[in-house]
């Protein structure tokens, strides 16, 4: 008797399981065919380390809403392992497209291969990866960091009078913007041998980092003429350190930064920074357009560059009232 009941129960259970299986399968197919309307995008952000990044996040979130794309957003707090975890979870959730700004350049092959096998296209935003296999991602949308470094270098070469000692505040070690902005700058100043980088250290793209490193440089370097900071926030930290040393930022020590966020532009307009190369964070709209094309299977260029310029003090005064971020 007991045996019969168990058999009956297991048969019922099996039927239920089968029903569930077919049910979910049907639903899966359903969304698959109507995928053109509701695109789900998984976005793995680096973190919120600077005002620039926050503007970038905001632009992506707002433009996703405007484009009717369902955005799943995660913040990796500057850790590669968190970003890999987020990407894996997007693969499991079967999103239509994955976009992310890689924290560092290397170590992405495995997780991107997983995405490729699951047939989920990947778009890189703002930072590139270093991989031999370019089929791992569809396109890279973002600024040309080497070009930004070159613009900073050009200004340096044009405005240098006599021997110039430059100290450099690098971004997070190993991050693409830090490597490329350094490279572009060095490339340009190489033409003038009397411009020298006398010290270079990472300030991790943060204000506290920039301030601490600059404080140490001010003590260890006998003569500093120019600070080249890889982002505004480190430059703002350096301003504090220079003031504390009894010198005038922008006059005694000139400052070049990259980004052009509102706080940086304010300092530029006030004469505390001398030149800012723009790095445009508002790439949300372009990203959503690319995402739609990629999901439809259309061809997209492998590299899309965002539009950006540079500001001196007068231009900053004019541009500041309309600055959104």
């Amino acid at each position, binding site marked *: 008797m007991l045996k019969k009941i168990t058999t009956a129960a297991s048969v019922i259970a099996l039927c239920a399981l089968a029903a569930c299986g077919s049910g979910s399968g049907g639903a899966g197919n359903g969304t698959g065919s109507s995928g053109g309307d509701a695109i789900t995008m998984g976005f793995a952000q680096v*973190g*919120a*380390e*600077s*005002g620039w990044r*926050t503007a970038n*996040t905001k632009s992506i979130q707002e433009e996703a809403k405007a484009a009717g794309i369902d955005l799943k957003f995660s*913040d990796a*707090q*500057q850790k590669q392992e968190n970003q890999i975890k987020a990407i894996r979870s997007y693969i499991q959730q079967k999103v239509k497209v994955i976009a992310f700004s890689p924290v560092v350049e290397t170590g992405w092959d495995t997780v991107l291969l997983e995405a490729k096998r699951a047939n989920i296209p990947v778009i890189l935003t703002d930072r590139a990866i270093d991989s031999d296999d370019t089929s791992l991602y569809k396109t890279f949308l973002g600024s040309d960091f080497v070009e930004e470094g070159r613009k900073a270098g050009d200004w340096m070469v044009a405005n240098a009078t006599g021997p110039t000692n430059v100290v450099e505040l*690098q971004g997070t*070690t*190993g991050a693409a913007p830090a490597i490329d902005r350094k490279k572009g700058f060095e490339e340009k100043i190489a033409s003038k041998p009397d411009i020298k980088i006398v*010290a*270079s*250290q*990472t300030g*991790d793209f*943060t*204000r*506290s*980092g920039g*301030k*601490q*490193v600059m*404080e*140490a*440089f001010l*003590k*260890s370097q*006998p003569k500093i003429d120019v600070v080249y900071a890889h982002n505004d*926030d480190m430059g*703002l*930290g350096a301003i*504090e350190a220079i003031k*504390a*040393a*009894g010198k005038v930022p922008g006059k005694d020590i000139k400052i070049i930064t990259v980004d052009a966020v509102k*706080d940086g532009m304010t300092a530029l307009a006030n004469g505390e920074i001398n030149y800012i190369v723009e790095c445009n964070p508002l790439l949300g709209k372009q990203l959503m357009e690319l995402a739609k094309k990629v999901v439809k299977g259309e061809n997209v260029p492998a590299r899309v560059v965002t539009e950006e310029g540079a500001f001196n003090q007068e231009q900053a005064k004019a541009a500041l009232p309309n600055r959104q971020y």
Partner: protein
Amino acid sequence: MKNRLLWPIVALVALLLLNLIFTPSFFALRIQDGHLYGGLVDVLKNGAPTLLIAIGMTLVIATRGIDLSVGAVAAIAAAVTCVHIGTSPDFGTALAGMAIALVLCAVLGLWNGFLVAGLGIQPIIATLVLMTAGRGIAMLVTEGQIITVNNNAYRQVGAGFVVLPVSILISLAVLGLVAFTTRKTALGMLIESVGVNPEASRLAGVKSKTIIWTVYVFAAVCAGIAGLMISSNVSAADANSNGLWIEMDAILAVVIGGTSLAGGRYSLAGTLLGSLIIQTLTTTVYTIGVAAEVTLVFKAVVVITVCLIQSPKARAALSFRKVAVAS
């Protein structure tokens, strides 16, 4: 006691000498705008938050606990204060903001104490909860933005000077207070007894649970003040980077100072030395021009060396003569 502090002192002196060799002007001090200015002053100013957190951590570790949430608590304190201050330049607003933040930190400390003493969860797990969630709370408060403030009263906490940096004066005052209340009364002994054996202490009439709650609340308040220093130093609250990994620096400072993670005996002087070693190490990296790519390796080598010379076994193994005498 003397012997325990000998090796940290040797390490600190060695680091300072290294700076002197690479930067002869490292020890130069001058008066700038009415306050002291120089490399050593920077070490004190930037080391103040780590020292403060390490003091709280010392007491927690003495009760055989650990507090991983201090970095997140520091971020919350900074976020709450800066959001409260907003664009106001008032002294009163800054004071109110800091008071609110520190009360909130005490509440967070109560939460940690509740998990550890009340529910009996292992400290490393209990405080991991707030370590992870706390940064989220701070992000929520700042809405993910970096909040820049322009308030001269608030600036004083982390960037102000009364001859010496205000921040180190605060940290040293707290150190003095803790040394006095725990060493001149029985409190220190009670804390150590809880660390050695909480159950035996309870049976002997020590209120173990109350002591555990107290040390977690104290650690959280210390973390809160440290958070204010860090954010005030740059006049901005950055929920993401404020106090990031400072719990590890603080634990390392306590351990380098000779306090055992197994609880019991603790050394506040050791913690002071440990904090100074860690900050001097960071400053050394910047001054002697270690390349950014090898910074972490350089730090790791120094920390491992310091830990090794503190271990009697490692010292014995390095010295053949001692081994020969022993055998």
